[in-house]
């Protein structure tokens, strides 16, 4: 049957525009499978580093009225074990996989790229913007257009996979950074990473709730920020955007599309609506297509760009 949700991202056909983002359910091949069978059209691995990381001590997750703070701290089994999970998943599924990698310097990014080249992954995502490791690594690379351009350019020189740069919303001018990534040859952008960071305080024990004190903000409250940044950025660049930030319902996904995203991440919404959220949003997008008389998702119009 004709799949009305099918679209393309950087040359790769996806059966649903919904993406499992990095850091959500992507620790194991089975977690990736569980998300794919529930309707995710693209799977992103946990952000992988050269060496395993245990991440921050708990609490690493804190809820409040508008969403969540998290400071997982880039826990991951390291690139080798992480790619084993990706390969084990790809043996069982045709769903495209974005392999997310994190590093703080050029050499490490290049080494990670060599590993990903040999994997079954479909895309390479450069996590330039984890907000939860300031103490350890300082200001994220994504804060500097020059650094982003330098790393994307070098990685593009050796990568066998399309390269996606994941950008931080927590910068003064995201558009100039996005342009730097595009000029350096990035095949796509992923935005936005978590917002803030922010904090919450336990008033009885007089302690920050998160052990790391600060954590990146996700959930419904960040959607307006994500829409605005995706819209501004898509107005200025030509490469496709994986848009994310607070998408919880089908209408949020349509908004993200209209703002300029080609595929759409759904993460924290798994808490609010269960793992079935991917299928639910797929159905809600289909209902929107019917209501508006659009044949496929690709017929949904975009906003007029900012000139």
């Amino acid at each position: 049957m004709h799949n009305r949700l099918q679209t393309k991202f950087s040359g790769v056909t996806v059966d649903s525009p919904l993406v499992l983002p990095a850091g959500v359910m992507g620790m194991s091949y089975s977690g990736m499978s569980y998300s794919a069978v529930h309707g995710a059209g693209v799977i992103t691995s946990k952000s992988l580093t050269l060496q395993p990381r245990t991440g921050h001590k708990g609490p690493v997750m804190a809820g409040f009225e508008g969403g969540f703070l998290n400071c997982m701290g880039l826990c991951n089994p390291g690139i080798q074990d992480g790619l084993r999970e990706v390969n084990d998943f790809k043996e069982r599924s045709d769903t495209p996989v974005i392999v997310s990698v994190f590093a703080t310097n050029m050499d490490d990014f290049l080494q990670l790229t060599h590993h990903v080249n040999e994997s079954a992954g479909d895309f390479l995502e450069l996590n330039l913007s984890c907000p939860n490791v300031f103490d350890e690594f300082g200001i994220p690379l994504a804060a500097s257009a020059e650094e982003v351009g330098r790393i994307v350019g070098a990685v593009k020189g050796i990568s066998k996979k399309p390269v996606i740069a994941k950008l931080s919303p927590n910068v003064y001018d995201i558009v100039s950074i996005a342009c730097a990534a595009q000029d350096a040859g990035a095949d796509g952008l992923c935005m936005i990473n978590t917002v803030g960071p922010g904090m919450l305080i336990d008033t009885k024990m007089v302690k920050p709730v998160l052990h790391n004190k600060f954590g990146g903000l996700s959930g419904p409250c960040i959607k307006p920020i994500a829409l605005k940044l995706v819209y501004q950025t898509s107005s200025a660049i030509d490469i496709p955007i994986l848009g994310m930030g607070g998408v919880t319902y089908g209408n949020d996904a349509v908004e993200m599309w209209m703002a300029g995203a080609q595929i759409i991440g759904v993460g924290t919404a798994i808490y609010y609506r269960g793992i079935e959220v991917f299928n639910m949003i797929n159905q809600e997008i289909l209902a929107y297509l019917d209501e508006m008389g659009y044949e496929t998702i690709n017929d949904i119009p975009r906003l007029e760009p900012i000139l």
Partner: protein
Amino acid sequence: MDKRVTLKIARITRETELINTYTFKHNLGARPGQFIMLTDFEGGEKPFSIADCHADEFSITVKKVGEFTTRLFEKQEGDFLSIRGPYGSSFFISNQKVLLVGGGYGTPPLYYLARTLLDVGADVTVVNGARTKEDLVFCDRFRHLGVRYQSITQDGSLGQEGTSVDLARNLLKSEHFDFVYAAGPEMMMKALMSELADYEYEFLFERYMKCAIGICGNCTVDPIGIRLCVEGPVMPKKYVVQLTEFGRYHRDATGKRIEF
């Protein structure tokens, strides 16, 4: 909304030298088999099964095994601890003839289960095993509850030498049970599983948990990917028989597979 509450420890009960029960005055509303995340905000937040739960209080039973639980053992009644939950799946409540198999400090959640089963009129037998009698918990509580109760230790410090699986095997040979429940070390449950081909059962699993709300993926189990913090920690036979990692490996805080 995922709600955190910070509570005073109402009561600390010494079970053995290394095992304490902490009781909090709070209407948690947990069902048997569910768990909470507990922290002292000094570094670390860990899952603990509910050992008992009433309208006005609940308790958890903790073994001193590492840095985090060692700090818990330094706490006094009246000190604050912070919790969130309850989380996860709960045990099926049968009103028929049931067998509960517990091992070591995994046994306490079976106490809340046994009490709930008795309330609905089930015929409850509990077998409880541990390495030595110092590790055996809740014996008196189970006896006071009015269930049929047997305990055993591997070193024979209570008389007979063996495991709770040995006790279960003997009972299953001579009697029919409508449903079997187990909580304890994974290898104990793995051994028990081979005795239960003809029985319906549920096992309480343990895995490294971080977010506890089904997002981070650290506690997914292979190959189906269900999350122990949402679809578990209580898993019915239909899931247990599919788990290729059961009794073979688990994932640590990095997500790396670690063999048992």
